[in-house]
């Protein structure tokens, strides 16, 4: 079937397009305007904005810790809408089904779950398989596991570490590698209550810095497109901007992605010893082109923090609201689930909110700063429309700032920043650049040959309204959202890499699992055929 989107404003930064034009779709792909053929279906999108489908690189939408959060907080997601016969379970709030529908409604077509523990990979993929419409990806967690720390302690060569990373990515069907408070979760098992970049993991004698270096090198050696995805030490602590700055230096000019950097952008000025260090951090990011960051914006309201940084989460238990938490000492990282209420009247929360916006606005290059709330840690992804408004409108920011404690505002530079994101910059940050970062050459743009993942928005003075409900969304060339409503389910792929490696490491792992756990290493595999839809995975090439 040949489909024509006629006369929309096409915003495609990859091809430097921002102009009125047509887009042609045949089957799942965007095609060049065909000579002498009439479209089977024409959508008049004159006056509308046409972008590629949006890509979220860091959103906790699946896996054991997310599910524990669902079970911990039944009172936060009671249902109220009747079922829709076309969309089974989509009115189950916070279900995987609702997650896919809500993302699609906003024009998102690909979302990456950034924290899948190797031993929980099958559950992660079962949950992702039940997220309709979207393509998904999963980042696999290493860095607090005994096998890796043992390799480092024993000074094994980098090749063994690289093979281990490759084998783990393959077994877990990961799209990339995440490291979370490297060594910190393990140190917590030895009763450490804080853990910095150069602290030493008991029993192993290795530092966080060394773990990062080894994993960063492994990802480079394997040519995995997405750089090592790092959750730093000392998340959430006053003065932790020093840790972030030191970690940027520790990247040694090599590619490194810093997740939810807002949470490490804190100085220690002011009466509470808590201030914004975002300007300093943004300057360092600007000066280090090897570094990419996603923001992890905090937005006011009730949420729940879900993190495999079990040390940080344990330390946060006393701040839980409602007052109940789960702390899981898992096989490597584990995790912590701590409900949290960000209050506009709270000085610390207001500074956190401002820090995120400062980072969005002070990092010059929209290709290196990514749009996230670290869902749901800074805020649920349902707040995205409001966040678009805040970065695109200084008036919207001024109105919000006026409501906040002025002693908090004074500890940030936010009021001095005039920048407003353009639509083109939004398209870079949410489409073009995520595709590039993840190595997804088939999406993030609107040129012929690209996947027909397309979002069409109706411009509105109310920016949040425009982004909350797309006029049309196409996934693989098929309409899935019409006038802000999902029309039906389709089942996307989960994107993964499959780097080559020396299988000797698998034999070694088999022995290790037998000896240590008394279990088969194979027990934690993710066989395709047990997932509910046929051909659940799509491979992303490892080459740069």
């Amino acid at each position, binding site marked *: 079937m040949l489909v024509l989107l006629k006369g929309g404003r096409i915003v495609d930064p990859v091809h430097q397009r921002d102009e009125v034009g047509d887009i042609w779709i045949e089957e799942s792909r965007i095609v060049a305007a065909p000579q002498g053929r009439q479209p089977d279906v024409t959508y008049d999108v004159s006056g509308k904005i046409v972008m590629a489908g949006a890509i979220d690189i860091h959103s906790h939408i699946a896996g054991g810790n997310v599910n524990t959060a669902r079970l911990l907080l039944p009172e936060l997601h009671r249902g109220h809408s009747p079922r829709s016969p076309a969309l089974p379970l989509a009115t189950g709030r916070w279900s995987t089904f609702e997650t896919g529908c809500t993302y699609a409604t906003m024009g998102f077509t690909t979302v990456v779950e950034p924290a899948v523990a190797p031993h929980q990979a099958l559950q992660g993929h079962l949950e992702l398989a039940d997220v309709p419409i979207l393509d998904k990806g999963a980042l696999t967690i290493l860095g607090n596991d005994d096998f890796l720390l043992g390799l480092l302690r024993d000074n094994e060569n980098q090749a063994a570490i690289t093979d281990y990373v490759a084998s783990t990515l393959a077994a877990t069907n990961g799209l990339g590698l995440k490291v979370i408070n490297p060594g910190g979760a393990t140190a917590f098992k030895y009763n450490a209550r804080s853990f910095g970049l150069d602290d030493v993991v008991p*029993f192993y004698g290795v530092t966080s810095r060394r773990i990062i270096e080894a994993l960063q090198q492994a990802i480079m050696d394997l040519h995995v497109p997405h750089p090592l995805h790092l959750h730093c030490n000392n998340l959430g602590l006053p003065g932790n901007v020093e840790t972030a700055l030191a970690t940027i230096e520790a990247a040694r000019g090599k590619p490194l992605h810093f997740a939810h950097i807002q949470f490490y952008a804190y100085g220690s000025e002011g009466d509470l010893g808590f201030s914004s260090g975002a300007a300093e951090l943004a300057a360092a990011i600007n000066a280090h082109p090897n570094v990419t960051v996603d923001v992890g914006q905090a937005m006011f309201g009730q949420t729940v923090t879900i993190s495999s940084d079990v040390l940080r989460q344990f330390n946060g238990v006393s701040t839980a609201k409602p007052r109940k938490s789960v702390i899981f000492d898992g096989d490597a990282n584990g995790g912590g689930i701590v409900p949290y209420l960000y209050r506009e009247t709270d000085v610390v929360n207001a500074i956190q909110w401002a820090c995120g916006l400062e980072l969005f606005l002070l990092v010059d290059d929209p290709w290196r700063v990514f749009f996230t709330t670290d869902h749901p840690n800074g805020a649920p992804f349902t707040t995205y429309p409001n966040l678009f408004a805040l970065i695109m409108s200084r008036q919207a920011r001024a109105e919000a700032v006026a409501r906040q404690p002025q002693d908090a505002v004074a500890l940030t530079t936010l009021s001095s920043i005039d920048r407003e994101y353009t639509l083109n910059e939004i398209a870079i940050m949410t489409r073009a650049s995520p595709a590039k970062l993840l190595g997804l050459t088939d999406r993030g743009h609107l040129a012929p040959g690209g996947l027909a993942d397309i979002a069409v928005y109706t411009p509105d003075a109310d920016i949040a309204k425009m982004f909350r409900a797309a006029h049309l969304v196409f996934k693989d060339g098929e309409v899935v959202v019409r006038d802000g409503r999902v029309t039906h389910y389709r089942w996307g792929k989960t994107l993964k890499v499959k780097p080559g490696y020396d299988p000797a490491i698998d034999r070694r792992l088999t022995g290790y699992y037998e000896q240590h756990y008394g279990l088969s290493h194979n027990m934690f595999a993710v066989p395709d055929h047990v997932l509910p839809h046929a051909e659940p995975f799509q491979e992303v090439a490892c080459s740069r």
Partner: protein
Amino acid sequence: MSEAEVDGKPASIEEATECAAAILSRARLPVIAGLGTDIAGIRGSIALAERLHGAYDHMHSARIFSDLDVLRQFGLMFTTPNEARLRADVLLCVGPDLTRVWPQLFERLAPGELPVFDLAQQKRKIVWIAPEPGLGEIAGVPVVPIEAPDLVTTLGGLRARVAERPVALDDAITQKLDAAADILRKARFGVAVWGGAALDKLSVEMLQGLVLDLNKTTRFTGLALGAESNAAGAVQASGWMTGFPMRTSFGRGYPDHDTWRFDATRLVESGEADAALWVSAYEAETPSWTRHVPLVALVPAEAHFAQPPAVRIDIGRPAVDHDGVDYSREAAAIVARKASHPSNKASVAAVLLRIAQQIGGAL
């Protein structure tokens, strides 16, 4: 081909699934109960319940909710058998039936071995509250027993002594508690192991309070043994599919969770549920309710019913007759298992799919 019966008489699988669909779709509130099946079967059950505007429950819900209600009212600290095996220097066992619940418990936790990840590499210690009779030692490790005629009081007393608070108990008991408290406080990575029928919510919460208190100065965590028939898998799949665990109903269209209202046995006994689908693929279990209700049963051939169900379809066992995915207690994760004795017996998911197709399709 699977064996099937309608009203106690042999039937084809087509006739049986057609009849099942008719019974379930004509009910005002059908309940899917038992739910002893693999993840694919649970997924099919929940999708069918949604389509039917029915409710679903698991046969071991009562034991699951004694932990889950504490999780969502108080919070929880827990770990995996792997960590307990490799790291725990102290085990605090609670309940007189741990090895009945999990016969391989101590084989798995291997307390006789030195904990590999422990810095001190010292012999482990075991304290057992409400001990199993006759277990004076486990793999050469002596058990420090604390008899507990009233479990929550004993746990409360121990928690008080760990916090160095006074207790109004006999001196002899207090001395025992003090000795145990000393072991717990000196633990480097202690694990409280609990499970079984003796623990109610109050006991679990008191035990978790003790664990939290111990974490003020050292590391301590918990290990719940859970229940059989993939109960933990049902909690997980239900969680991601609806946001809630089992004992959830779609009577209002959206998932509505209530552990009393949607207890399957109560729904049937009260007459609120007017048809039931019973699923038990792991064990030849049958429903515990006594009231007659039109019943569709997906059970192994060995299952015995006093009255033949309206529809009975024999199904295979996950990981025996067919590949299956379920929650593994030994791995503390959802895992895929290959069929050990592949057969042509149908899986629960396959039968549910046929039923769903009669009434407008499956998820």
